Each structure stands twice: as structure tokens, then as C-alpha cells.
């Protein structure tokens, strides 16, 4: 199963296995990764599953759709490498993906 690493803060990093086909958000929620709220449950309607994707991975993954960029306007401290984790679908190609969790979601 693909491994996804969450950098929670400077001291805490957690790596979990997420089945292909699930989203990074679902993997995080099911494994109790702190800091991924996902209030709307994956509907791209709330921007509380916001993550920063490390640069090497950001360009490798499928591009954002318009709706995602619109929602990121509302995220807490959005940056160029911001993504909504509910829109990143795990696959073998993403094995080893590393994302940073923002200091808060809103």
C-alpha cells in the first residue's frame, strides 16, 4: 500500500499506509492524523483539510481543478504549494508522498 507522510509540526511526523483510491484526507481522518479537520467530509466546500505538498511532489501530482483553487482562497495561510487533501487521490505513483499540515485550519 502507498505510504503517505504527514509532517505535523517540527517534532512530529507520522507515516501511514493508505489504500489506493482513497483520498489523502480520508487516510488522515481514518488514522487520526491531527490537524486535518475535513469539516465538509470531502465535498471541496470548506478548506479544512488544507495541506502543503512538498515541492518535488507538488509538480508530480494531477493539477488542481478550478473549484479547488477557489476554496484555497479561504484556507488558513495558503501558499503556492497548497492543496486540499480531499482532492488528492492516493495511487502507487504517490507512494512516499509527503505533506505538511498547516498550524491550524481556520
Amino acid at each position: 500500500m502507498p505510504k503517505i507522510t504527514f509532517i505535523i509540526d517540527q517534532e512530529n511526523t507520522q507515516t501511514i499506509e493508505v489504500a489506493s483510491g482513497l483520498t489523502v484526507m480520508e487516510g488522515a481522518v481514518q488514522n487520526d492524523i491531527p490537524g486535518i479537520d475535513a469539516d465538509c467530509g470531502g465535498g471541496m466546500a470548506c478548506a479544512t483539510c488544507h495541506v502543503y505538498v512538498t515541492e518535488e511532489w507538488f509538480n508530480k501530482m494531477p493539477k488542481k481543478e478550478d473549484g479547488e483553487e477557489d476554496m484555497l482562497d479561504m484556507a488558513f495561510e495558503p501558499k503556492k504549494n497548497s492543496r486540499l487533501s480531499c482532492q488528492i487521490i492516493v495511487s502507487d505513483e504517490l507512494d512516499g508522498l509527503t505533506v505538511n499540515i498547516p498550524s491550524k485550519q481556520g
Partner: protein
Amino acid sequence: MIKTDTLIIGAGPVGLFCVHQLGIIGLKCEVVDNLDKIGGQCIELYPDKPIYDIPAVPECTGEELTNNLIEQIKAFKTNFHLNERVEELKKVDKKWFIKTNKGTEFEASSIIIAAGVGSFEPRKFPTKEIEKYEGKQIFYSVKDKKIFKDKSVTIFGGGDSALDWAIELANIAKVILVHRRDDFRGMQASIDKLNELKEEGKIEVYTKYQLDSVKGNNKIENINIKHDDESMKEIKTDYVLGFFGLIMKLGPIAEWGLNLDKKTIPVNTEGFETNKEGIFAIGDICSYPGKLKLILSGFHEGALAARGCFKYAKPDEKYRFEFTTSSKVVKDRLGVKE
């Protein structure tokens, strides 16, 4: 003090259908919601987005669903207390006493929490140091636009609220609009108008910038905005407005002594009652094994919770199950004329 059978917290689709289920079994209810309109997430987050999984409704928008639910409960003439958030609950004898942030008080034999993920509140700037200016020079909504007359106002955001206020306030104030990217997500007509005002020199627009810091002692004199390329720009401004949409916060619900599992309230699946007798939770806010956050699941949960409220409202009566198709009593309650 408003006396009722059941107080519903949350006017989203699940709360609305629960009004119906209470109504047909003869219970009265009042509804409180922190938003300024009925409809909850359906209206606030996706009024125009089609929903495809409401049984027997192949496709409808969040707004249509809300309007249909309002139509369905019309006969019950329910009072909605909008722009109000329930703050305190206490139980005296067998009644619940409820108070909102606006001071409205209720007495009810049961409470149904249909609050989604909590109440909607404006998202704020990430910059911690600016909290002390909130309500003085920093605002997340406009209550009285006259205060901005002939002042300099910096607006942050790229959606309709940011654009509408930038355009509106450009008539009376010096407006600077700052957004984190080049694209605006507001209505095209507003974006065109913004570009027109920018051409005419009536609005200054800075894109790919975000708020970095504010300068001043007890009063903001200047703010610094930071470009994607890390370069800074200083802006002299009297007021700062932020429009980043709304976020849901559990808020006072967390203080009521209910069992919580993360941000949800565990319930039993026989009646959707919580660990507190007479308090029920339905819709996105409740959790139980197998819970799905679907509107249709919330409707079912509301139907059962409403029946659960019956014994608290009418302890001396026996609840009898009836169909809307055949019961004359139910049809009378619905105002059906035959």
C-alpha cells in the same frame, strides 16, 4: 420566555425536515440558527451546486432543496430565530431552559441538535497580533458603511463579498483590494466592474499578495503585504476588511456536558438521543457505527429523534404511529384539504 415542545438547533436540511416530523406527530418546535438565513451548509456553502442523492429527486441545488423543505413545513408556521447562537442550557425538573447570545430564552421538554459541524463564523486573518484591532479597525463584515466615508479601506479576498464591498465602498472611500492570486472567483459582472474601476483609478488592486503584518501602537497606521516572491509593500490604511468565507466552529455545544468524539456527538441509533436525557443529535453532528454524512441519513435520524421527543412532551400520552397517506389527524396538521 418562549415555551415549546422541542428546540431545534440548526436550520439546515436535517433540522428543517425534523420540523416536519415533529409537526406531523403534533409537537411544536422553535428553530435557532447562527446564520442569517435558513438552509445551513446547503445555502452557505453550495446554493448553486447540484445534489444528486436525495431520494426521488434526481437533481436539485442546495437552494432548491432548502426552498422545498421550507414549503413542506409551511403548515406548521414555525418560528425561526436567525442570527442567534444557543449559548447556555440547563435542566430544571424535567424541562430544559435555553438561552441564546441575543438573550432569547426558551423552555422546552427536549432539544434536537442538528448543527452540522457547528455554527458558521467568519474566517479570520492568520496574523495573531491583529486580534486587538478587531471591531475597531479590522472587520469581517460591514454593519455600518458610513464609518468608511472618506477613509482608506484595504479589502482582502477574491470572492463576491470582497468584490461587492470593494465596488460599493469605492463610491465613498479610497479602496485598496488585495488578493492572493490573479484570478477572482466572484461573479463575472463584478470582476468586469472591478477592472473598470481599476482603470479609472478608483480602486487599487494588488494580486499575489497576502497580509503580513500591521504597524501602529493602539491604532493601525500601516499594513505590510507580502508578495508570492517574498517582496513587501507598505500600505497606509484606516480600516482593513477580510472576506475569506465562513468556517464552522462547534462553539458552546462543547460546553454542555455532552459526550464528544472529535467534533461529533455520539448517539444511540434507536432514538438518536445523546448521553443527556432529552437532548438528541441528528445530521452531520451525530456519530454512531456506520454513520454516513448524507442528507438522506439526516432525514431518517430526524424522524426517529422526533418520535423520541414525544414522550418528553406528552408523558401521559401514548405515541401511535400513523401514515400521512391515511391519517386524518396528520392531514389536518399538514393543512391538507380534501
